[in-house]
């Protein structure tokens, strides 16, 4: 018995190839950010130097602040406006999406009825249809309704890619939650509002927060639908960055804006890693 046991490999042991793969992918993921940061702090960085020949702090008598960042934080770059828009739209979309999906998720997660599979497919459909096709077709409707280029229009259109994630997360939350606690509360005489706010909501809160964080993330990262429906009037961080790099070149200010556009994601990455183990996406 001992002989066989020692011949068996440790099931959780990592082999050198796997170690190499993880390391290589970490480098592939993170390394490209290095030149982005360097570029935003460079004063002169001519080809073919790997590092800038003149850093901004060597020129600080000329500009007390890195030039790129000075521009990024000045009103003319519209970064502040774009950040406010991105966060505002993200929060509104998240709350709206939650209000729409929470009741539906209870039905989908706890009730059985005919056509449920088809309904779940319909809800997943926005993920399976090309975003450009949806965006362009909707743009025509929104122009007719005078919603193109307005906050309302952009917020409505952000619901399309966020609803599938939110609905899916909340459905599985309700599935796992069951109805026992609610039944007890009802027997004890609680009314429907009390049951929801005192019993259900506290119990499903972790799942709700996970769904909200991811919805917010999808919304803040959305480019195409904002660009099509916003018609250039609504500037968010992704569209601002797009305008900066659409010519196919990246200057120091573009690098700064790209870094700013990554900030919400980095914050959420730290936040979700600490507080949430199960990602709503991963199902």
């Amino acid at each position, binding site marked *: 018995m001992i002989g066989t046991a020692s011949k068996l490999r440790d099931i959780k042991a990592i082999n050198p190839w796997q170690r190499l793969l993880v390391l290589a992918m*970490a480098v592939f993921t993170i390394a490209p950010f290095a030149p982005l940061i360097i570029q935003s702090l460079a004063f002169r960085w001519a080809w073919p130097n790997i590092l800038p020949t003149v850093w901004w702090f060597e020129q600080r008598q000329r500009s007390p602040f890195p030039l790129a960042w000075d521009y990024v934080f000045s009103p003319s770059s519209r970064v502040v406006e774009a950040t406010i828009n991105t966060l505002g739209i993200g929060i509104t979309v998240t709350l709206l999406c939650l209000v729409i999906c929470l009741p539906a998720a*209870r039905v989908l997660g706890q009730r059985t009825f005919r056509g449920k599979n088809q309904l779940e497919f319909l809800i997943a459909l926005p993920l399976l249809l090309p975003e450009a096709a949806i965006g362009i077709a909707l743009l025509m409707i929104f122009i007719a309704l005078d919603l193109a280029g307005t906050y309302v229009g952009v917020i409505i259109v952000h619901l399309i890619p966020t609803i599938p994630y939110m609905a899916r997360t909340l459905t599985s939350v309700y599935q796992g939650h069951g109805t026992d606690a609610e039944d007890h509360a009802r027997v004890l005489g609680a009314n429907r509002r009390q049951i929801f706010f005192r019993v259900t909501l506290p119990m499903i809160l972790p799942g709700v927060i996970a769904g909200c964080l991811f919805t917010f993330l999808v919304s803040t990262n959305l480019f195409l639908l904002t660009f099509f429906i916003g018609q250039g009037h609504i500037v968010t961080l992704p569209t601002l*960055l797009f305008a900066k790099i659409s010519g196919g070149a990246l200057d120091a200010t573009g690098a700064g804006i790209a870094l700013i*556009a990554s900030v919400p994601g*980095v914050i959420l990455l730290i936040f979700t890693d600490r507080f949430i183990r199960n990602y709503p996406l991963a199902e």
Partner: protein
Amino acid sequence: MMRTASPAFMQNLRDVVEMTPLLVVLLGLFGGALVLGLLQSFGYAPWFGINEFPTTRYFERLWLSSDFWFSLGLTLYYAFAATLIGLVISVPLSIALSKRFKASRLFSALIRLPLMVPYTVGIALALVMLGNGGLLSRMSAGLGLIDDPSQFVQILKTHGGCGIILVYVWKQVPFMTLNLSAVLARTGDDTVEAAMVLGASSRQIFWRVTLPQIMPGIVSASLICFAFNIGAFEAPLILGGGYPDTLPVLAWRYFQDANYAFQLQGMAVVVSLALVSGLFLAAYLQGYRRFERARGRV
């Protein structure tokens, strides 16, 4: 008896009421877009003074041009290549991340980063790394391989699309890995352990045990990524080789044209795009069902 509805009926009514907002939003946005898109592509646009409904001439003009087929080919090529490369990386990566190693949480968090940032950031990174004045070009000069930026191998702005595919892969490997990791965590190690006890080699375990187990995750992740890649717009626009563009960019160019009549042509592009995407996804799902049936799982 008539005045008090039965509890079952009330419960059903409540279900319907609670489903309604979601259905209204989805059907309103989707149904509206679908109906209007179809109508327009068949020549219905009274607001531009065009009403030739039903005409197939926009589709005819589109499908008879060789540029359309080139665009379609490009779109499918980028989408296929990126999805396939993404899978080839994500499957072993998710298995590796399920193992025990030092700082495993830090590494899995680092690898998730691209999932959290916009695509446009990925494009900016591609420009700063892969462009002719980019870091790789500078490094080649440092190694003495080239002595002018123009000699650097053209990675961006070509129809070969290495830049586009790399951005997709960079952005989607975390998504696929996360999906697969969740499936792996759910299945657990029991079957792998059993296979090991029965004397299976690592290769046998991978092909006969792990891979079939994570197949549902592979299918759903690659479906979503493929569909996204077919409809992607900004990466081909900035990093692509220009005319003829991928279909989403082509449709956008028609829409930006000062001549309104071109919008109907653009809508024909959009409908074709949705059609192609739908056909591929349906074929994929069909193939997957057959695979599962052959294994006796369904």
